[in-house]
């Protein structure tokens, strides 16, 4: 993990507060602890109390803020909607939290250039709905799309279920305009879909977890909207059958838009929240041990045939049930079930460590079976689900943090999962980023040279280390 810069202050002085009051009049500044509390937490369930919360409306305010913060050594924590899973928006070491939610304008949608310009606080699903009206398509679809923002998605390089066919947020960021510590504005990339002049700074910002600069404008790539889509949900009596079914789909030459799987415990948890279509008893004959959800898209006339091909490819694995949905109204209920899994896991226990490792695609089966074995060995619930199509597996280790023994076993599980992942040639995080929850493990994966290079880059952008200290790598 990065060392905290020694020049950082340890709290705000009255003069600091006066400055903030001047720059953020009225509702722009909050210092009451009860009001600030929520700005200190995110979906990683880590929390720290901010020293102050500011809500810029303009880039000028952002410039002034970062100029001042660098001069004074005040830590700054960018924040959008706080749905991050690794504590990226948590002021773990104090500081001023910068809420980007008032910068939420879609500045431009251009169906000739196939790109859009947005402020960072726009909610992803609202943006998708907007471009869809113009028959355009912004593919990245984290499960949190209705509750998270484009700025947060870019800062975490959010991935989604469509990644298997369309890639992740990174693949749709053409340009980033950001304010750096000290108040400099940089324009990285632009509106062109190809660009090889200079280093790819825009990509460097993607997934930087708010440590290099604060985005004020993003230029995003759009595609023509596919005419339609269709979904298949199938339940299987064993994990092996489900994974074999998935392989058959690819062998048949089908590139699904999304290919997700849920293991037995995930299926059980969802069944606790909602009525589920699959045979639900947790044990015994005929019980569901794994569920696959697949989506295909394309022209409407071809979809029905495509659905039958998927069904045919899965038939060899003898699904316990198979549901098909053609068009959003029929598909949505099937996907809603998949989206519920992250919260559903809490039905197995009060606390969880949510890991999102990724392995080379051919090693997925080995990885999932290995993770489940680790859980069985430690006597802890290990729930696996996720993006089968691209090897990104969510491993949820569920335990009771009030019990010291369970805490220790959960940690042992997590470390065993990491070791297995790395031994398979995988990565510790495919989507959520390392933030504060995984920061300490980064050296397991990245060598000294690589880390030194990254620290050097961080130093160029943020020489005094004020921006989101303690996060990342």
């Amino acid at each position, binding site marked *: 993990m990065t060392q905290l810069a020694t020049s950082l202050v340890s709290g705000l002085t009255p003069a600091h507060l006066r400055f903030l009051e001047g720059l953020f009049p009225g509702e722009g500044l909050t210092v009451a602890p009860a*009001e600030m509390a929520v700005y200190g937490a995110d979906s990683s369930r880590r929390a720290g109390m901010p020293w102050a919360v500011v809500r810029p409306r303009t880039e000028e305010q952002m410039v002034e803020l970062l100029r001042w913060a660098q001069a004074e050594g005040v830590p700054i924590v960018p924040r959008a909607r706080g749905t991050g899973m690794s504590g990226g928006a948590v002021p773990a070491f104090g500081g001023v939290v910068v809420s980007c939610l008032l910068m*939420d304008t879609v500045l431009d949608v251009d169906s000739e250039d196939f790109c859009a310009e947005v402020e960072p606080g726009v909610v992803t699903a609202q943006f998708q709905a907007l471009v869809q009206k113009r028959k355009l398509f912004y593919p990245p679809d984290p499960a949190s799309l209705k509750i998270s923002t484009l700025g947060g998605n870019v800062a975490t390089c959010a991935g989604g279920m469509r990644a298997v066919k369309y890639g992740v947020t990174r693949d749709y960021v053409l340009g980033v305009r950001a304010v750096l510590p000290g108040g400099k504005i940089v324009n990285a990339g632009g509106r062109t879909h190809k660009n090889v002049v200079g280093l790819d700074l825009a990509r460097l910002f993607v997934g930087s977890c708010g440590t290099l600069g604060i985005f004020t404008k993003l230029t995003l790539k759009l595609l023509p909207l596919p005419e339609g889509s269709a979904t298949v949900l199938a339940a299987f009596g064993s994990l092996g059958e489900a994974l074999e079914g998935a392989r058959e789909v690819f062998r048949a030459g089908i590139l699904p838009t999304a290919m997700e799987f849920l293991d037995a415990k995930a299926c059980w948890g969802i069944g606790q929240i909602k009525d589920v279509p699959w045979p639900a008893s947790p044990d015994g004959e005929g019980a569901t041990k794994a569920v696959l959800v697949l989506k295909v898209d394309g022209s409407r006339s071809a979809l029905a045939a495509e659905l039958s091909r998927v069904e045919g490819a899965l038939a060899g694995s003898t699904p316990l049930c198979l549901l098909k949905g053609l068009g959003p109204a029929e598909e949505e209920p099937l996907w809603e079930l998949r989206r519920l899994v992250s919260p559903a896991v809490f039905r197995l226990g009060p606390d969880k460590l949510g890991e999102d490792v990724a392995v080379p695609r051919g090693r997925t089966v080995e990885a999932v079976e290995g993770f489940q074995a680790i859980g069985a060995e430690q006597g802890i619930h290990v729930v696996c689900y996720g993006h089968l199509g691209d090897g990104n597996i969510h491993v949820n280790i569920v335990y009771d943090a009030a019990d010291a023994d369970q805490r220790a076993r959960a940690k042992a599980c997590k470390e065993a999962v990491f070791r297995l992942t790395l031994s398979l040639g995988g990565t510790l995080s495919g989507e959520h980023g390392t933030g504060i929850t995984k920061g300490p493990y980064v050296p397991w994966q990245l060598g000294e040279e690589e880390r030194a290079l990254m620290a050097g880059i961080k130093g160029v952008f943020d020489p005094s280390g004020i921006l989101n200290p303690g996060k990342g790598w």
Partner: protein
Amino acid sequence: MPPDSPDRRECVLCGCCLEGCPLLEATGREELSPRAKALLAGPSKFDAARLAEGDVAALTGLCLACGRCEKLCPQGVQVPALMAAMRAAHPDFRQWLWKQWITRLGPYWSLAAKGAALAPQAFVDTFVPAQFGLALKGLKGLRPGNGLAPWLAIAAFPVQAFRARYGDRPVALFDGCVGRGPRAAWGETARLLLKGLGAHLAEPRFSCCGSTLGVAGLPQEQAQARAENIAAWREAGRPLLATYCATCRKGLADYAGPGADGGLFADEAEAAAWAASLVPLSALLEGAKAKAGRGAPAIVGYHRPCHAEAADHDFRLLSSLLGPRLRTPAGGGCCGFGGVMQLSAPELSARVGASCWESLDTALGFSAAPEVTPAYVLTGCSGCVMQLLATAPRGARVGHWLEIIRQK
């Protein structure tokens, strides 16, 4: 405590509730979000000494009790109920205002509405606390005789379907505070409609549904209202209970809902019978035919109350009666009534109201040519009617859908 009781359901900070909260949507202020409330009301992650109790109570009081968050929460966290409990635990919190409002004015809303209308502005400015402004405006709009002019005649009632489904079972109409008070015309029209169906009317003496009392942090008063209503229903032979206010319906359903006081009913069977007897008036009228007469506006807007049931029978009935004339914004939108918030933070309530009218405008397009097609909006909840009246743009017409129905 059973493992699944509402008190045990802990917020896991997932943020799924952020999608629906009208306060967050209108202000972009996360501290007003349901997650912030659940975080503060639940086992604290923060050093208690740093969070002054009064501040917490005041902040968590900023909630419209619209219930959108609880529908989205996978953990079953009930933010409005948590907020009500906090209000109840902080007796000095502004709920005294609301208590006065309901207990002093409630039974006399008809009079109060008249009074509000008659009171000279100077008098209001001097003697009425500033917080009452928005609520008074809504109340003024409710005054008798200020409703919409009727233009829809029911041409055929679904008598057969009603008989087939309910036989001779008597029907009691639950009027609620507004339908009993300033807009007694709603109750009259509703009774005529029930007669048109051939229903046998029972007339128990009901009290307030109790939902606003509960939200305001007055659990004793709420429990009393609930007990009175159940006793009246029992005495009338447990009739079908028809409602025409979405919030009343939800308030009544909550008697037998999760987290309710189990002692209200004789046994579980009676609680189930209560739940099963609740039916929106509009559901009974499904299949009716109507004819639009003179004075029918070209475009009619529909505002979906947050408390409407999932099937939203009011909308179904109106769209079958009015056809393409009826329009509603795709995403809905909370009007911002929020009971106690009218008094504790009227400016926020008004802000949510303003974004509600904006989304109505995208569906109805009234602002393009207000003189040609002025805003005309129907809904099915007393609170929504009041709030829409108080926040309406100039020239807009707002009312309960019962108001458009001709009484003969």
